[in-house]
């Protein structure tokens, strides 16, 4: 429990750094830290496979590409302090609404009591069975969706050239 709160606090701190830091490089690195801490909390939940996939896919690959783009575009640190635009005000209002909603839920909602997790919980075999035996169609549809996204990106890049 202490471990969870410790990780959660660190996670919130680095998530805030992502949106508040002026230098986009630091924001991206704070994002890596956040994603890594999410992986740590997966480990705390006995979901080691998910934790490793989180590290490999998000922390190890996707954010590298973010950094790559930020560096290539040579984005500079923001020189002006943050000012609220009209869209920003709307976003802030929505965020407040969500915070209130979550707050109410935390008070009202009673979590379903989970007995001790079944044997092999979080193991690769169990996850594979869920993914490929019970949810095979959604899984395959998701991969088609990703393929479409990749093909779309290539088509757009070609048209420009």
């Amino acid at each position: 429990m202490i471990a969870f709160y410790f990780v959660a606090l660190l996670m919130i701190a680095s998530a805030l750094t992502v949106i508040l830091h002026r230098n986009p490089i630091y924001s991206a690195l704070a994002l890596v830290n956040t994603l890594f801490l999410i992986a740590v909390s997966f480990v705390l939940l006995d979901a080691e496979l998910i934790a490793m996939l989180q590290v490999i896919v998000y922390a190890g690959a996707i954010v590298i590409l973010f950094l790559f783009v930020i560096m290539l575009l040579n984005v500079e640190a923001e020189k002006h302090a943050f000012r609220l635009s009209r869209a920003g005000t709307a976003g802030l209002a929505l965020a407040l609404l969500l915070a209130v909603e979550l707050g109410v839920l935390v008070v009202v909602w009673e979590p379903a009591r989970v007995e001790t997790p079944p044997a092999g919980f979080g193991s690769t075999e169990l996850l594979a069975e869920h993914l490929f035996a019970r949810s095979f169609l959604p899984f395959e549809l998701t991969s088609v969706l990703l393929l479409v996204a990749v093909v779309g990106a290539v088509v757009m890049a070609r048209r420009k050239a």
Partner: protein
Amino acid sequence: MELLIAFVKALVALLIILQVTVLLLWIERKGSALIQDRVGANRANIFGGLLPFNLGIVNTLMADPLKLFHKEDIVPKDADRFLHWLAPFAAVLPLFVTFAVVPFGDVLVIGDTVINLQAAELEVGLLFILGMVSLGVYGVIIGGWASNSRYAFLGGVRGSAQMISYEIGLGLALVSVVLTYGTLDLQAIARAQGELMWGVIPAWGVFYQPLALVLFFIAGMAESKRAPFDLPEAESELVAGFYTEYSGSKQSMFMMSDFIEIAIVAALVTTLFFGGWQVPYLYRDGFHLPGGLFLAVPSLLVTLLQVLAFLVKLFIFCWLQILVRWTFPRMRYDHLMMLGWKRLLPLGLANVAVSAVLVLALEGWTVA
């Protein structure tokens, strides 16, 4: 007691990686001299009269590291000081923990206690190594950017693009291995290789997945950014690439991360394709030779032989990488990308598809 065993195992895993790294430094310097027909490091000979040649141990193992660690640490004027400091740690620290999941022996039996010779018994050990290696990329890209130098920046960008491209080939080679063994646990994979094919040939991964071995070895070498894949630090174009602006101990940390990556690739090749700690025909009670011959060996000696076998195999594959490094010229960048995306990737995909079909078609084909 449990805690003590865990602590000692973790310490052993860390020591293995540190010792291997230091020894690799020596092998690299004396080995390159051998390959290039030079004398190499030869100062302060400590075994003067005993050997007909000079091993150069004092140079490479003591004088060099000492010199590196008390050199002046220079940070360029316009560098991002914090990230410049962070990058070497980001490059080397994730790699330190990788050996925790590599099994360096079967079991050590002391009285009634049976100790599994693997620091962390992680079910997803293989993915753990991949994840930590992929985190090592940050050191390269941050180091290149934070130095505020064009050479360093180009090196960093090249390095990250190269490592991301080759991670895909690396991963695909490993997928077909995992298909063969049906597990991600490195100790389980090593144990499975103790079986025999037709009662004679040890069931090592190299016989099941020869193509995966080649793909993995190439992609692994590209991952460790050394010649012929050393474009991120190409000295003839980029001075020293992403670590141009580093000196002293920070620079040596980048060097160390390269050596650790060599050791990791060698450890994975050993564990996945060459039986890990397996000595052919040696089981927990002794040698079971084909033809029914049996030779009893005490348990402690079995363990010792296995650890020795693991280390010997490890160093053979480290040496092979050093040999390649000092033998082949650097690739051109477009050739590098072509090799990664147009050769390794389709071959890896085909290998996965064929392996999957074989696993389904021939139930007995898999080891697990």
